[in-house]
């Protein structure tokens, strides 16, 4: 897979179409969400119609925390400790006022924690549900986050949050939307995807992965064999939520902002549609489908029919290829 990533990048350079890298970078983040969701839906059999909520929780948390001005609290002990670790950033804002921001590394940590808390919090009551009830409950979660994002001034209401700083790394490299860092961003984003895929493939082949497949295959039998199905479903839900949140964090820093549209129902449905195309229990298929479909969508390939395409995809997939289009390699 690494080879194909490099090959694509070299190809864009050679054809002078390096601007395509931008959409490929964004497609990487969205595909990350898809892959996490694929694990949840395909291996544990839990449908989530509100997964965009976790993407947004990650994105909004990092946006808020990295843009809030903590100057008034400059002398508080926690801030002093963080400052000594180099995790705060002083500076001036466009109006010349002095500001003090948290480093995005802190907000990344906070975003992951926040999404984990929410995932466990709603997972415990909701994952007991089955079928339509679970679908509606997750849909409800997605709608709640959308409404909260849309209606809360602190979160930027309808305009969302912008001016989110780049995500800094060593040697002056940073994750942001500038051309200077585009190459770095491309390799960084796809490296993260690669790492996550590695972890997930490990998981699928492990004892826990087998337990998850058993739960999906026949939950009653799995329980009779000593598998604590509730615990596994909960942890997997949280894992897929955290993956989505991490994608949200990096996407937000890359594009410099986030808006309520990222948590809309349509986004969640899209993720489900892509998982359906890629194959419910096939993370590689989900990745490929996610990359292609997101890339096309981001390039505006579908025009005003963008949402309709995904709706049609859902129907076509279910009627003709309920197990996905990308064939799974026999393991």
């Amino acid at each position, binding site marked *: 897979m690494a080879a194909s990533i490099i090959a694509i990048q070299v190809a864009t350079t050679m054809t002078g179409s390096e601007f395509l890298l931008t959409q490929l970078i964004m497609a990487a983040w969205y595909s990350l969400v898809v892959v996490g969701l694929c694990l949840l839906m395909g291996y544990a059999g839990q449908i989530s119609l509100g997964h965009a909520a976790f993407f947004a929780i990650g994105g909004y948390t990092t946006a808020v925390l990295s843009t809030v001005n903590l100057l008034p609290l400059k002398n508080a002990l926690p801030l002093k400790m963080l400052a000594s670790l180099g995790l705060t950033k002083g500076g001036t804002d466009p109006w010349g006022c002095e500001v003090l921001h948290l480093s995005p590394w802190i907000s990344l940590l906070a975003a992951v924690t926040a999404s984990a808390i929410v995932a466990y919090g709603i997972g415990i009551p909701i994952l007991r549900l089955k079928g339509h009830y679970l679908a509606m409950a997750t849909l409800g979660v997605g709608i709640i986050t959308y409404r909260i994002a849309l209606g809360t001034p602190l979160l930027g209401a309808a305009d969302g949050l912008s001016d989110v700083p780049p995500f800094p790394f060593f040697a002056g490299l940073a994750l942001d939307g500038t051309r200077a860092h585009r190459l770095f961003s491309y390799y960084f984003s796809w490296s993260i995807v690669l790492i996550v895929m590695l972890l997930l493939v*490990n*998981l699928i082949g*492990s*004892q*826990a*992965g*087998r*337990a998850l497949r058993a739960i999906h295959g026949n939950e*009653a039998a799995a329980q009779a064999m000593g598998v604590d199905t509730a615990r596994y479903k909960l942890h997997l839900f949280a894992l897929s939520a955290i993956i989505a949140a991490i994608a949200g964090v990096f996407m937000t820093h890359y594009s410099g902002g986030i808006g309520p549209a990222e948590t809309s129902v349509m986004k969640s449905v899209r993720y489900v549609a892509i998982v359906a195309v890629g194959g419910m*229990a096939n993370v590689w298929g989900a990745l490929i489908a996610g990359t292609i479909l997101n890339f096309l969508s981001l390039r505006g390939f579908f025009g005003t029919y963008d949402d309709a395409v995904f709706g049609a995809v859902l129907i076509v997939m279910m009627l003709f290829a309920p197990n996905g289009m990308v064939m799974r390699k026999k393991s």
Partner: protein
Amino acid sequence: MALLEVKNLSKSFGGLHAVREVSFCVERGTIHGIIGPNGAGKTTLFNCIAGSIRPLSGGTIVFDNQPIHSCASHEIARYGIARTFQTIKLFPRMTVLENVMIGCHTRSRGSILSGMFSLPSTRAVERSIRNAAMEELAIAGIADLAASDAQQLSFGQQRSVELARALSLKPQLLLLDEPASGLTMHEIDRMGELIGRLRNSGITVLIVEHDMSLIMTICDRLLALSSGRTIAEGTPHEVQTHPEVIRVYLGGR
């Protein structure tokens, strides 16, 4: 001390009293049978003991001095009770070996975190589970089916796999739910021999069954149910000649 003690077990579904105040004991190293006409409550009783029906409407279940009437089925499995299902519940889309490896699941923690990072210790545990599963398949005589897709097997083979899977839990008590259903006469005889061998190796067996020949041949004690209540308990001969049992089965005078 009996291995399993059931006291005044009751379970109602709304207005339907499936099991009413049933009490019995299962002694270690015996084969105990539960019989009764359709609708007698055998399956409900069975599922109550196995943990898939909760909460109970009344009564207690104590296994090896451990009260299990409020335990969920996965906890009960960890305590040492394994079960098979009347309608075979093998895991589809998994091989026979993988099915039996699930039976070995309780041997280690198997957390998601350890699964993601393929540490040497995790891989060692995985190898030992795989070997243990192969052993179970060998004991059951179906080691050659290890790589087959569980759904492609014949009915009799599927039953063997399910049994091997249950035995991988190394249970003290094995619950068999109508193990003879769908088997030929010859296969039923072999099943009877197998159950006898299990008992001789130290496993206690509780079996729900319709097939009278199997029950009468292998069981040490029988419990007869009708309409949710116990109507007879004792050795197969005692139960067979019990007037109430005869009345319920044959509708005699």
